[in-house]
Structure formats: C-alpha cells, structure tokens
C-alpha cells in the first residue's frame, strides 16, 4: 500500500479526538470507507457527521499527536491481484513481507457477494485422511467450516495437514494474531511439502497491532476470488484465529461508543462474520472457495457470542478434544458436524459409508452411557463392557487426528472393530452391506 501523494489527495493536520483505535478530525469531501494515512499509519473512514470524520487506525493510535498529518487516499482498501501473489507472504496491508512489488491489478477488498442463483451446489468430496473428518464429517468444496478448539489444542497443525492433503490449487493462509512460532511452523510445513508455490499468506502476528487483523480476511478472500473466478482454481482459505479477529472488531466498535451486544461483541457480529464466511462458494465454471477456520474457545464454552454466531453461519464445526482414555486428540463425533456431508457420502464414497458412520457413532454413544453408569458406581452388563472396549479402538484407530488412511480403509477398520466386539444384529447395519463388506462376522 503506497503512500505516494497524488494530486487529488487532501492533507489535514488537526485532530480533535483520539481514542485507542480511532481519531476524529474536520475534513471535507471524504468518502465512507475511504483509506487515509494518519501519521504514517493506515486508517479507514468509519463515520462521517457533517464535516466531522472518524477514522479507524489499523496500527493503533499510540503516540499519535493532535497535529498529526492525515492524508486521504480517495479510495477504499485494495490488493494487487495477479498470479504473482502465489508463493508469497504479505502483511495485513497486502505488502510483501520480503519486500519488493507485486505485479497485478488493483482490486478493492471486501467486494460484493455472489448472486445466490449463480452458485452451484457443492458436490466435490475433499478427503483429508483424517477419519474423524472423512468418515464422520466429510468436507466438500465450497464449504465453510471452523475448528472449535481450546487454545491448547493443536488446531494449526491439523489445519496445515488438512490443507496439504486437500489437493487444492491454492492455499491461502490468513493469520490473525498468529504467534510467530506458528507462522514459522506453517511456512516450514508448506516448504517441506514442496507446496510453497501454491501458498499465499496474509499474516498478522501477535507482534502486530490487533486492529490490523481486520484487513486480513478480506485480503485473503480477495486473493481467493481472483484465483477461483479468473483462473477457475480450487482455492482453500485458512482463517486462524477468528476469535482474535472478533476481538479486534469489538475493540473498534467499543471505541466508537456503540452499544455492545453479548460478551462485549458488536451487535453486528453475525453480519460481520457472515460476510466473510459466505465468500465460500462453488462457482459454475469449476472454481471454488472452501474456508477452513479456527475459532478458539475458552474452556470449551460454545455459548460465547463468537462460537455461537459462527455456528449459526458456518456449515458445521469440527470439535477437537483430548480423549484421556487413549491419550490422543480426537475429532469429537458428538459435537462435530459437517452439514454438507450428505452431498458426498455414499455418493462419492462407498455406498455403505452413511450406515457405517451412524452405527459407529451410535455404539460410541452407548459406550458414553456405559461410562456414566460406571462412574456412578452401577454394575455394567456384558454389552456395556464390550462398548467400552470398542470405544477405545474407535478412538485410537479412527477418531485420533494422527490417523491418515484412505476412506475405504476407514470403513474396513470400522468393520474390523465391529466384528471384534459385536454381532451384526447389535450393530444394525442394513443386511446387504453386512453380507457384502463385513468380513470377520465372528
């Protein structure tokens, strides 16, 4: 984002109000959402009242003086889009981190939405090798889905793994409040996989000012739209961490004296998040944007405004949890959901997939009941004991995030576990599938 002073730019030097995230001044001819540079920092118009203009300062207002120089740019924030983006990492303003220039067309970020009648129904299966996802919560191109995880879960690692296995033409990483270590981790993993030329990164780390994050998802999604619309590519966008993004939203809205809604979040949180997530789309010409996000929870609380609004917007959620019985992090089959799985399982995957999925989850639920019984000191029946053993195998061999097998092998593994502990009548899979696929009926 350059600071060249063109003829039409207007310069002011008198601020009459400063808050942590905003400044106000008297200025004329200013457009809503127009960019400005305040004391060398990027800012955007968020409110106009007569001659009074309020700007949100992405880098924070620390040290800004009332006589700071304000230069209006006459345009909304933009990103230079082109094939040149591939393989590079950028800051929140779309400037290459390693310096240099990008060749491309200047494109406004946060552009319009896709006309719903021009969308195609998502239908392409994305295998990840992780059975907790593929078997129980299959992903589809054009889907938007977050990981719900406590901050100590290895969500960034899982996300990097999913991204590499997803066979996407481009992976766009939007890091918001990413630790420097995690940023380097992503870079390393992609580099080792020889995938760097397919990656585009927009990075705001914990070392950067929080309000800058507000630009990051729009930058990433503008780049994604370039590749998906103009190159008909399959683009995977990784948004991590959307809770930190939302925190930045609340900083700005609170500084603007807006009445906060639940959990001090702005009343418009739902619309703000939906505008980003709804950029996930299957285009008619083959290109697609799939969004995998991270929403960190505090103490597993999904009723907090951020996960709650997210759940209402996204097409399911993947819940990470440590299973202390087997000592592994698993994708929780109860609280996770992929709302689009119906579009591919049993259609793009083997016909018995839905039945096997449901049967295993049902048995796992029986095991959970048996466990409660056990904890309350009641006697266990023989069936209870068997479900508990099954649950351990299921957790270790299928739900754990370190599993990496083909979808058919997941189904085979499930039958092996069924056969080890149950009779077909107890599992309740349609007879024709039992005959066809269940090998060790005991």
């Amino acid at each position, binding site marked *: 984002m350059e600071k060249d002073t063109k003829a039409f730019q207007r310069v002011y030097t008198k601020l009459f109000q400063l808050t942590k995230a905003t400044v106000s001044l008297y200025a004329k001819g*200013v457009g809503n959402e127009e960019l400005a540079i305040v004391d060398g920092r990027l800012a955007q118009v968020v409110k106009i009242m007569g001659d009074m203009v309020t700007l949100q300062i992405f880098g924070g207002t620390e040290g800004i003086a009332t006589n700071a120089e304000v230069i209006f740019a006459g345009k909304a924030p933009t990103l230079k889009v082109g094939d040149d983006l591939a393989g590079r990492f950028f800051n929140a303003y779309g400037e290459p981190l390693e310096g240099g220039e990008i060749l491309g067309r200047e494109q406004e970020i946060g552009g*319009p939405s896709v006309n719903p009648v021009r969308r195609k129904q998502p239908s392409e299966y994305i295998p990840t090798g992780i059975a907790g996802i593929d078997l129980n919560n299959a992903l589809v191109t*054009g889907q938007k889905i977050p990981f719900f995880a406590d901050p100590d879960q290895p969500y960034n690692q899982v996300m990097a793994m999913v991204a590499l296995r997803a066979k996407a033409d481009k992976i766009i990483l939007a890091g918001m409040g990413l630790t420097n270590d995690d940023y380097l981790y992503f870079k390393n993993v992609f580099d080792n996989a020889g995938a760097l030329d397919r990656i585009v990164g927009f990075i705001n780390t914990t070392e950067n000012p929080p309000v800058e994050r507000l630009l990051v998802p729009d930058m990433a999604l503008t780049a994604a739209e370039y590749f998906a619309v103009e190159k008909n590519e399959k683009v995977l966008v990784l948004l991590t961490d959307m809770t930190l993004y939302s925190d930045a939203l609340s900083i700005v809205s609170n500084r603007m004296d*807006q009445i906060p809604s639940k959990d001090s979040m702005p009343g418009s949180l739902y619309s703000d998040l939906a505008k980003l997530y709804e950029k996930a789309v299957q285009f008619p010409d083959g290109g697609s944007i799939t969004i995998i996000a991270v929403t960190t929870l505090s103490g597993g609380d999904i*009723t907090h405004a951020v996960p*709650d609004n997210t759940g209402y917007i996204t097409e399911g959620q993947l819940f990470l949890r440590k299973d202390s019985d087997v000592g592994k992090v698993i994708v929780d089959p109860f609280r996770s959901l992929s709302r689009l799985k119906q579009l591919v399982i049993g259609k793009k995957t083997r016909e018995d997939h839905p039945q096997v999925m449901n049967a295993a989850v049902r048995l796992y639920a029986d095991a959970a009941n048996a466990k409660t019984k056990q904890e309350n000191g009641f*006697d266990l029946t023989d069936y209870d004991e068997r479900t508990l053993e099954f649950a351990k195998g299921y957790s270790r061999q299928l739900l754990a995030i370190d599993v990496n097998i083909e979808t058919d092998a997941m189904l085979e593994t499930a039958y092996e576990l069924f056969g080890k502990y149950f009779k077909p009548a107890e599992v309740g899979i349609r007879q024709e599938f039992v005959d066809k696929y269940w090998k060790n009926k005991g």
Partner: protein
Amino acid sequence: MNTIGNVTGVIANLVIVETEGTTSQNEICFIKLGETKLMAEVIKVVGKKAYIQVFESTRGLKVGTEVEFMGHMLEATLGPGILSKNFDGLMNDLDKMEGVFLKRGDYTDPLDFDKKFEFKVLAKEGDKVTAGSWLGEVKENWISHKIMVPFKFEGEYTIKSIKGDGEYSPKDTMAILIDRDGKKHEVTMVQKWPVKVPIRAYREKPRPFRILETGIRVMDTLNPMAEGGTGFIPGPFGSGKTVLQHNLSKNAEADLVIVAACGERANEVVEIFTEFPELDDPRTGRKLMERTTIIANTSNMPVAAREASVYTAMTIAEYYRAMGLKVLLLADSTSRWAQALREMSNRMEELPGPDGFPMDLSAIIANFYARAGFVYLNNGETGSITFIGTVSPAGGNLKEPVTESTKKVARSFYALSQERADSKRYPAIDPIDSYSKYLEYPEIAEYLNEKIAPNWTESVFEAKDILLRGKEVYEQINILGDDGVPIDYHIKYWRSELVDFVILQQDAFDKIDASSSLDRQYYMLKKTLEIAHIDFPFDSFEDVGPYFKRVINALKQMNYSEYESEKFKNNEKELEKILGEKRADAEAEKA
C-alpha cells in the same frame, strides 16, 4: 415534484439526509452516487433531518450527495408471474441480474412484462366492485391467478368496460372502473402495494378451525398446525430448523409455498434452487418448484434489505390469499430480521431494550404474525396464510427477547432440543416442551375427530402422557440404577421409547418416511397405543429393552415401507410374530 435532500452523515448503512421538503416515515428514496442509484428507506425524521437505512453498501458515499425522495413506501409488484421466481428481499428478480456477483444499485423487474397470459373474464360491465374483487383470471403454472381490483382502490366502483377472454400482457389495460364521482380508473394485471401495510381486502378473519397437513408426524399427530395458524421453531444451531422447514415446504398440503430465506446461508437456498425443480409435489405430481416462490436475502446480502424481505414475502402471501388460495409462508430465520432491526437501532443510538434490541420489538413481531390467518373473502370464498418462522436464540437459550416475543403471539411452539439432535432423534422437536394451542380449540378437536377418527384427540393426549411418564421414570432409573427400580419402570420407559421411535422420529431424507399421510398416521398411532396397552410379562429388567427394540425395529420397517404395500404388510406380520411370542408367554403365565 419529488423532495430532494443532501447527505450530511454516514455510519455504515445509516445515512442522515437534510432536506427542506416533505418526507414521510418508511418513504423510499434514492441516493445518487455517481451513475449508481442506491435505494434507501426513511426510518426516522427529526426536524429537517431524515435518517435513512440504505439497502446497499455505502462505500464511497460523501457528504453533500443528492438524495431524491420518491413519495411512496417500499412496494411489492403484484401480478401474474410471481410463482417459481427467485427474488431478493426487495423483490428484484435475481435471475435477471447479470454476472456472478451482485452489483450495487442493480434493480430488476419482478415480473416478465412481455409475457402473454390467457385471460378469462369473471366479471361484467356494470358490476359493482371493491378492492380485491375478482375481475378475471389467468393461468399461472397450474393455479388460477385472479386479476383483482387493486387493493389501493378505496370504496365502491362500477365496471365501465372489461376485456373479453384472450391473450394479454401484464401491463395491458384489462378494465376501466368508475368511482362514485364518475372518475375513470384503468386496471391492469399488475398492482403495487406497500409491504409494511397489511392487505385487508377480506370480510372476516375467523379463528382457524381446520388443520394444515404437513406429513410430519410429530406435528400433525401431536401438535397440529392450523390452516391459517401461526407457529415458530426455536432451536440452537444444528438442531434441525432448516431441514424441518425444507421438509414442510416439500410436504405440506398447501396450494403454494413462499420461502423467505432471511439472513441465513446461501447454500441452503441453492439446495432449493437445485432440488425443487426436480422433486415432485406429493399431492399434485407436479414439480415442487411450480408451487414455490423464494425470497432470498442471505446473510451476506445487505442487512436493511433483510429486514424488508419478510415483509415482501408476507405481502406476496396476502396477494395470493386474496385469490382464495391456501398459502404456506416460511421464514428462516426471524432472528436475523430482529438483528437487522437491532443493528439500525444501535446506529441511531436509540435507547435499547433487552439485549440491545429495539424497545418495540415485541410489537413489531406481534404485528407481523397478525398478518397470517384464515379469511373469508368478500365474495365468500376462503383463503389462508399459515406462517411458521424459525428463531435462532443466542447461545441456544430460550430466555431471550426474540423467542419470548414470538412465544406471546405464535400459537404453536416447536422447540428443537440440542439433546435430541445430538442423539440423532430427528426431527428434534421436544415432545414435552412443545405445544399447539390449536389442539385446545374445540372447533379443531371436533374437526380432527371427524376427519381422522372418533376419539382421535384422546389418543393424542394418551401418547403425550406416555411420553411424560417415560421421562419421569427415566430420571428415577438414572438415580436409582437399573435394578434399583421395579421392572414396571423399565416397561413404562420403553413404552415412551416406542412412541418416540415410531411416531416422533421421522427420517427427513428417506423417500417414504419423509412424509406420512393422515390415514397412515392414524394407523401407526393406533398400532403403537395397542402395543403400549399390552401387559407384557418380563422376568428381568434386562429383557425389557431388547424385546422392545425388536418391536420398535419392526414398526420402523413399516414406516420405511409404502403404506399398505406388500412390504408394509410383511413387516406387520413380522411385528405380529414378535408380539405373539410374548402374548403366548402371558397366556402361559395366566394358566
């Protein structure tokens, strides 16, 4: 001359305009941003300042920009050709827009004005008519679309001339009417109506007295929806609100269905676009899309237009009701509409009510629900709007303003439970908390007992009672342990599981189970209650569950088979065999 004003302030999509001329509440205006005109609505006027909510992004808008006030409110365009279309919240035809992305200020005609319709005249010269009187009809898909005296016409008119049968375009003059003062008025097939004002061209709105079949057992059998009634579906995310509404739109016995996708996912609307043109209407055999109209204002589309979308949908529903049709109106989700109101109210710095919602939220919701209903038209025919909205309570907690305000006005309450959804007991309608006030209406009870079977309502209350008892004993078993309670407790529990699995649970994705006729619902409830009446002998509590599971499985197989088919009868024989085993035991025990 239209009033002109100038922009003096911009906060997101709230714009303040100063004007010397007259403006009015809810008046439509256009902001002239370069070549683009942005549509907006007046939501408050203070002195010379009009506060307007813009139905588009306000990016780049500057102080001083000219605004033209149009002298009318937001209006729906009503005429033949609405059916099967996909509109946005302001009734722009989405299919007519160019390009993949929505363009700001791109407003398209709701109707196809060049299309010809076959007109059949219903009135004659000299007839006295009033607003809503049927002048003629045209075929629209398969319905007889009535051409009416515009709703805006006040008082009585005389038909001076009217066109004969033949082909006409929507904008052709079809009749000339004369008012009391002898003034002439031309009537075409098209009229406009302000969406926030109810259409009142009917004689009477009685209490609903018959039910609207939905094919969904937990509704029709347990908590029926009245034709012309109101209901709402609250539930946390993922509990099945949208799947239930889609299922209603597919299977309910309505002449036409209007779906307002209000601030929710675009892919869910795409599902309707993609599937409905292929799916058959179970009653008429025509494609579902032929009776469906979609108002799509998804979560990424402008917030102010989201608020308008439910009104646009209601106005279209009222228009078709005035033709004597049975309309089902669905809105998913009314909470997003309430949130749109909240966003604006916050920007205007109004004194907030609970959770930051506007103070008059309850009144706004009540007025909206009041527009549904069963009516006798002025010509004695009947029409109805049955309205069912979903509510998305924050954090899944029903103690929040939108749920509470809606509960005051909607007569049926279908509460989706997280627990039932987690255990995949779909549709996850909580059988204990949910209710239909209509079941308490004597006229509805009478209707049901006459239509389905004498004593039907008694059976329904018995089923409800079994569910309640089951819940109570389940809590006891959990506290005291399986062997800490009498066997009878297990039997009571499993009776409620029987009703749960056979009547309540229904597979929305199974071709056959997705919809159940009233005959079939009667048969299954009778069968289920018969089994619940049997005094099964059991030696140990451990035998109760496995036996009932077999019974349930046999009944479920019946649910999955075509009603009264060979397969259905075989499943029933299997059931009788399982029941026979225990009956024999019972006989043996007695002997």
